[in-house]
Each structure stands twice: as C-alpha cells, then as structure tokens.
C-alpha cells in the first residue's frame, strides 16, 4: 500500500517542525516508493538499487531544508531521486537519457492519478458489489470478459450485463453530481 501525496507531505512538514515520529514514518513510507521508482528505470542489480534508495533517503533527510512547504512533495522527492540516478550513471561512466521531471510525475502517477483513483473507488463503492466487481475486473485491471467471469464464478453474459448496468448507473450518478 503506497502512501499518497497529502499523507507524505503531512509527514514531511511534521519532520520539518521537528517531529521525530513523522520523520521516521516518512522515511519508512518512502522506501517502497523509491524502490519502485528505481526498479522501473534501471536494469541494475538489487544491491545498486538498495544503495540508491539509501542514498536518496539520506539526501531527503539531510537536505530537507530545501523542501518548500507551499509546493508538492512528489515533485521535490522525484527531483532528488532523479538527480541521484543521473549521478549514479555518471559515476559508472554511462550516459543514458532520463525523462524530465514532468514526465516522471506523470509516470509515477503521483498527484492526478492518486486523486483520480480515490474518485473512482468512491464512485464504485456506491454500486452493488456485483457490478463494481465486474467493472473493476474488466475496466481497471484489464481482464477480458471470460477471465473476469471465471474469477467471479459468474456467467460471461452476466459479467457483460453487470458492466453495462454499472457504467450506466455511474454515468447517471456523475451527471447528477454535476
């Protein structure tokens, strides 16, 4: 389970105010985030990635004064992670192209995607479980109809109908919300 932007930022600000518990929680929560970040971009071994994660944690901690409380946490974090990765490649005498920070934020889906996921979850929770399950399986997880049917132990046509009715209900609800 990955912590989201607002939670991480709250811990970060707590740490800046001198709260040891916040700082510990922040650093712990960053370990999987950074591991995923480096693993997705590097073919290096486990050790290299561990080293980079640790180096980045040290930088996040010792240079936390450079975080601007009025700006997003994700942008600050991934700028440091990206810098450490570029530095790692440079030390190894390799050059490689690395996406710009804007692309990283999109790829990591840090802000918009986490907000969107919350919205989708909230909407789906309002549907009957059968319909929300069918939509999750076919539209969010990318299963095809027969896979979804097998997993939910339903008939294929039942899945199709559930998806259809569920989406229709969602559409009506969204229109009503606007």
């Amino acid at each position, binding site marked *: 389970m990955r912590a989201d932007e607002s939670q991480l930022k709250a811990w970060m600000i707590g740490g*800046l105010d*001198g709260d040891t518990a916040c700082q510990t929680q922040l650093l712990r929560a960053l*370990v999987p985030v950074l591991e995923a970040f480096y693993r997705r971009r590097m073919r290096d071994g486990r050790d290299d990635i561990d080293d980079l994660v640790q180096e980045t*944690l*040290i930088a996040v901690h010792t*240079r936390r*004064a450079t975080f601007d409380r009025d700006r997003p946490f994700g942008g600050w974090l991934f*700028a440091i992670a990206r*810098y450490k990765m570029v530095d790692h490649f440079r030390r190894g005498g390799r050059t490689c192209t690395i996406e710009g920070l804007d692309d990283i934020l999109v790829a990591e889906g840090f802000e918009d995607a986490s907000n969107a996921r919350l919205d989708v979850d909230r909407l789906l929770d309002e549907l009957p479980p059968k319909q929300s399950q069918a939509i999750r399986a076919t539209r969010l997880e990318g299963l095809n109809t027969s896979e979804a049917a097998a997993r939910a132990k339903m008939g294929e046509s039942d899945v199709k109908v559930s998806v259809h009715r569920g989406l229709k209900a969602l559409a009506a609800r969204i229109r009503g919300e606007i």
Partner: protein
Amino acid sequence: MNTDELIQALAKDVKPVPRHAVGRRLAIGIGAGAILALVPIVWLLGLNPQLALAIQHYSFWMKWGYTVSLGSCAVVATARLARPDSGKLGWMWLMVIPVLSLAVIGLFEMSRAPPTQWLAMWLGHSWTVCSSLVFLLSMPIFGGLLWSFRHLAPTRLRAAGATAGLTAGAWGATLYCLHCPEVSAIFVLTWYTLGIGLAALAGALVGPRLLRW
C-alpha cells in the same frame, strides 16, 4: 547497513527547520563573502575619495541600480536552483531590462557629447583593470555561496553554478562601485558587464564539479 537501521539512525537527528532556511543560508553566504570582498576594497584599492560627492550624482545610482537589479534577479534564480525542483527560469529574461536601460542611457549620454570624447567615455581611466577587479571581487562571494550550497540540493548544477557566479559578480560589482570613479554609462555597460559575465561563466564551468552532492 540495512535500510531500517539507516532510518533509525537518521531519525535520531530531527532538528526543526525554519521556513526560510534556504534564503537564510544563501544570505549568510553572500553576506560573509561581501564582507571578505570589502577588505581589499578598503585596504588595497581604497574607497573613492570623492564618494560623498559621487553619491549625490546620478551616475553613482545608475551604476548601483544596474548592479543591484542584476544581483537581485540572480539571487532569486539562485534560490530557485538551490532546490531540487527548481521550476521554470524563463523570467530571467527580465534581466535584459537593466541592460537595455543602461544602453539607452549610454546612447543618450554619447549623443550629448562630441564624438571626439566617445572613446574616452568608453574606456574611462580604468578599463584595463575594471573587469578583472569585478571578477576578483566576486570570488569571495562565490566562495560564500559554495558554503551555502553545501546543505542545499541543486539538481541543475551548471545552471546553479552560473547563477551563483552571476550573483557573486553583480554583488562584487556593487561593492566595486565604492572604489570606482567612472561615471559614464557606456563604460559600466561594457566593463562591468564583462566582469560580471566572466564570473557567471566561471560559475557555469566549475558548477558541475563543485556543487555535486
């Protein structure tokens, strides 16, 4: 050391960080460097003996207006680049405003003087040393900024080096005004700008090496 132990060790030291820590650190570095730069101005070059008179003349404020406005833009840019997510720096084009303004003043002054004096206005009495002195006086301030950067987190090292050099050059030139007796805008536009530009160039060259973390 495994990651858990590392986190334990790091989290033992969580001092509160004031809100404007970056600005404060840069200000201390620039201030300390400026005091160091003042020493040779006062003891070796000497203050302009007619300083009291000079500050009543517009040319002194023109020079300071030029160097201070460049210096202020450069400080803001340096503060941005001291953070990992430095953001866009397109607004730095605003710095052409003081340069162009000085050029307009220079042309105006020349238009009011006979062409035989133009060369004298351009070279003044000190063109041979002006740029080098501005460059040399920028060094202690650049050194102060390097100290500031030790706990900051620039990720665009060449750009950060360049703006640190620009900051040092512009504030070094501001202090040099206390010595420099020159009065013509075209002189300042040429020789001051050259010194400040050299400082920025030097910063861009050494930035990637010295600002690494």
